[in-house]
């Protein structure tokens, strides 16, 4: 049997992979390293609604230049709709209109925001104080009580706002605050109280940017005009913290509704986002070079799919690590590709939380599985019971972590539960048959593989390369094929077979 076809295939894969990567590098000026570039956020808003057989008008608020972000390009996709961009002193809006629409409708808007720390919003003058509707009894006395107390404890608009937020939301929440919260949402209530006290304030909507997130919604924030600095400052309506977090993009700042739909029901807007690094010039060039055959890249997909692919394209890296460790090193793992899935979970949870969460879940799972083995159940039923146990453990840990204020604990839900259940089942059988030592060897091997796979997959350079150069997948394929053809010794076999080599001098 000739191995020639094999090497021809491997060679072709290597050549094709390297050629397409080099082409992308040269043609689109995508650099090999992620540094020396600007970070760009691609954000996609999807509007869903049901049209009611008639004219439809959809208004969506759009983000503008602001602290830390600059609008690069924007696109819409909406077949059969007329589109107009409008701008006034309260912000920008996109307006879609159509004469006759029926059934479920989807409109897309996507924007590229360039992260630039020195970007500033256009100079804004404070609007006249919004006319406040007076409170009815008994809310009026509760409102003035809240305002008076916060006013007495504060020195200026900023501290007044902070005190008011803590009175409404924080531990100091009193009876009057609870009474008023029956009438308004917290942020709306705070803005209304601020306005009532003669402070210029407005409710704005912001988007928390996190790489690869899908189906996100906007969150409420409060802006208060700082008369001394002559600018708006931002407050977190929950904690009262002042200042704009680095990863917060203000989507709507005019105090208007983000989405208005006339002629439709069940309307909602959700956001997906993705960050990547681009040279500023390429960001512009991307515009012109779309839709050519050679520009075969993930970037031509809708953003939601791109975010998904960013993770999928990393899996071959994890697989390569597993193949390497098993074929060249000889590490034993429990379940061949289980470590890759665990590593994917680590990416979501961060390494320390992931490790602690994994060990806790498996340890508790093993104890419970040990009890289940006394019940003498059929296999499928037992594994199903373990799955439910794992879900219960994850829920309990999440709630406990939340109670103790460890927000990192919330991410354990990212662990693949069915895989964990099978891991527990396998380890438990291994424990019974081969003893705890084998469990430690295989469990430790799996964890080591998972950590190494995580380190490889979470490396910024690896993420950059796999996401921007699809040809790398062909190179990975070629490497894995070559490894699959390796007939030499594994590293650990050099130790295993050592006794044979020194039998000349038996002790």
């Amino acid at each position: 049997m000739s191995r020639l076809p094999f090497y021809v295939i491997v060679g072709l894969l290597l050549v094709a992979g390297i050629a397409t990567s080099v082409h992308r590098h040269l043609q689109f000026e995508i650099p090999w390293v992620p540094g020396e570039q600007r970070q760009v956020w691609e954000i996609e808003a999807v509007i869903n609604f049901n049209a009611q057989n008639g004219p439809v008008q959809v208004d969506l608020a759009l983000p503008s230049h602001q602290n830390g972000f600059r609008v690069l390009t924007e696109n819409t996709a909406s077949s059969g709709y007329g589109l107009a961009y409008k701008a006034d002193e309260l912000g920008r809006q996109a307006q879609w209109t159509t004469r006759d629409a029926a059934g479920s409708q989807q409109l897309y808007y996507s924007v590229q925001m360039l992260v630039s720390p020195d970007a500033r919003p256009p100079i804004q003058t404070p609007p006249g104080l919004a006319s406040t509707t007076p409170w009815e009894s008994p809310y009026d006395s509760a409102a003035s009580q809240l305002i008076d107390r916060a006013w007495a404890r504060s020195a200026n608009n900023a501290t007044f706002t902070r005190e008011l937020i803590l009175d409404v939301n924080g531990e100091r929440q009193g009876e009057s605050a609870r009474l008023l919260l029956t009438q308004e949402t917290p942020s709306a209530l705070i803005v209304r109280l601020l306005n009532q006290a003669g402070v210029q304030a407005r409710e704005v909507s912001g988007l928390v940017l996190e790489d690869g997130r899908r189906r996100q919604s906007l969150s409420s924030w409060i802006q208060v005009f700082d008369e001394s600095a002559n600018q708006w400052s931002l407050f977190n309506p929950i904690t009262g913290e002042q200042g704009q977090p680095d990863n917060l993009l203000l989507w709507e700042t005019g105090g208007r509704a983000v989405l208005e739909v006339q002629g439709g029901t069940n309307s909602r807007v959700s956001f997906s986002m993705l960050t990547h690094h681009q040279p500023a010039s390429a960001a512009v060039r991307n515009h012109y070079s779309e839709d050519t055959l050679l520009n075969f890249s993930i970037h031509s997909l809708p953003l939601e799919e791109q975010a998904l692919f960013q993770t999928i394209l990393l899996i071959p890296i994890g697989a390569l690590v597993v193949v390497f460790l098993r074929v060249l090193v000889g590490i034993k793992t429990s379940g061949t590709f289980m470590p890759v899935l665990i590593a994917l979970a680590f990416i979501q949870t961060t390494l320390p939380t992931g490790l602690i969460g994994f060990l806790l879940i498996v340890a508790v799972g093993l104890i419970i599985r040990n009890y289940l083995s006394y019940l003498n159940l059929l296999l499928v039923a037992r594994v199903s019971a373990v799955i439910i146990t794992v879900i219960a453990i994850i829920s309990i840990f999440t709630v406990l972590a939340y109670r103790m204020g460890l927000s990192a604990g919330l991410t354990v839900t990212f662990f693949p539960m069915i895989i964990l259940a099978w891991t527990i089942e396998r380890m438990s059988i291994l424990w019974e048959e081969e003893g705890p030592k084998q469990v430690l060897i295989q469990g430790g091997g799996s964890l080591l593989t998972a950590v190494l796979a995580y380190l490889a997959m979470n490396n910024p350079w690896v993420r950059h390369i796999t996401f921007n150069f699809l040809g790398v997948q062909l190179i990975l394929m070629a490497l894995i094929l070559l490894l699959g053809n390796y007939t030499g010794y594994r590293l650990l076999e050099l130790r295993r077979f050592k006794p044979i080599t020194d039998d000349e001098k038996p002790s």
Partner: protein
Amino acid sequence: MSWFKDWAWPGRLRDKGIIGMNRRNIRYIGRYNSRRLYPLVDDKLKTKLLAQQYGITTPELIGTVTTQFGVKHIGDMLTGHNGFVIKPAKGSGGKGILVIEKVVDNQFVKPSGAHLTLEDVERHVSNILSGLYSLGGSPDVALIETLINFDESLMAYTYEGVPDIRVIVFKGYPVMAMMRLSTAASDGKANLHQGAVGVGLNIATGEALRGVQFDRPCFSHPDTGHDLASLVVPQWDTLLNLAAGCYEMTGLGYLGTDMVLDRQHGPMLLELNARPGLAIQMTNGEGLRRRLDLIERQPEGVSVAKRVAFAQYHFARKSELAETPDTTTASA
């Protein structure tokens, strides 16, 4: 530097002709064992029926249990049998094998002396059927076989369990053999990595070459204290012929045959393995490479007896145990 002492250079291993996992998988299992033949050896029931067809002795089958419903009738099936073995048809690595040495007052006695009730036995069979011990957890069948009365001459070399003989058969030639002796450390199981003693056997005569426990040389059985040098497998030629015949029976080119010696019936085939391990190289103190290379150059279609004779002539070796001072020579 002391850390370095536990590791061998790849070149040293290559000189010794040691075969690693990767080479075994690609060069031998991948090339000589056709995937479609695996079920013949992975399912012990199929192996057994096939062996009967080819006239290869196996332990007598008392019966099989195929459904959970059938578990209830296992009591009837077992009446009249004093010692028996229950095993999963698709088990691997000796998992799920229950040995009952004798039946006393409806209590089933294991070799370790532990007593089991009929209910315990039924539960074990039920576990087998639900796939607890099978590869991938697929539903399985339980086999019940008569207990092997293993040869008295080997009694002194084992602790509780049945000593079995592993012969690697390559393209029908027996290339290397070892005996696995269970110890207290291995809990009566003949698994080397659990602490059983592995004894390399001379292909020519069936005499012990050297003993290994936990990968280190060993000269006497750790529990019975019996000298390994005096160990000779009786009816060795019959055993090799039986093992070599498994090539025609299964068509698998690289095969591990597990044999036992019964007091009345002589050598018997216990089970076959399409992915035999590499520990046999440790027990023989020699790599498989040179022997496999030699066999690869031999033509196909040679008769069983000729293949055995070829192997006995070319793979004969001198015992390393006999050189130790306080042993009597094993054979003339």
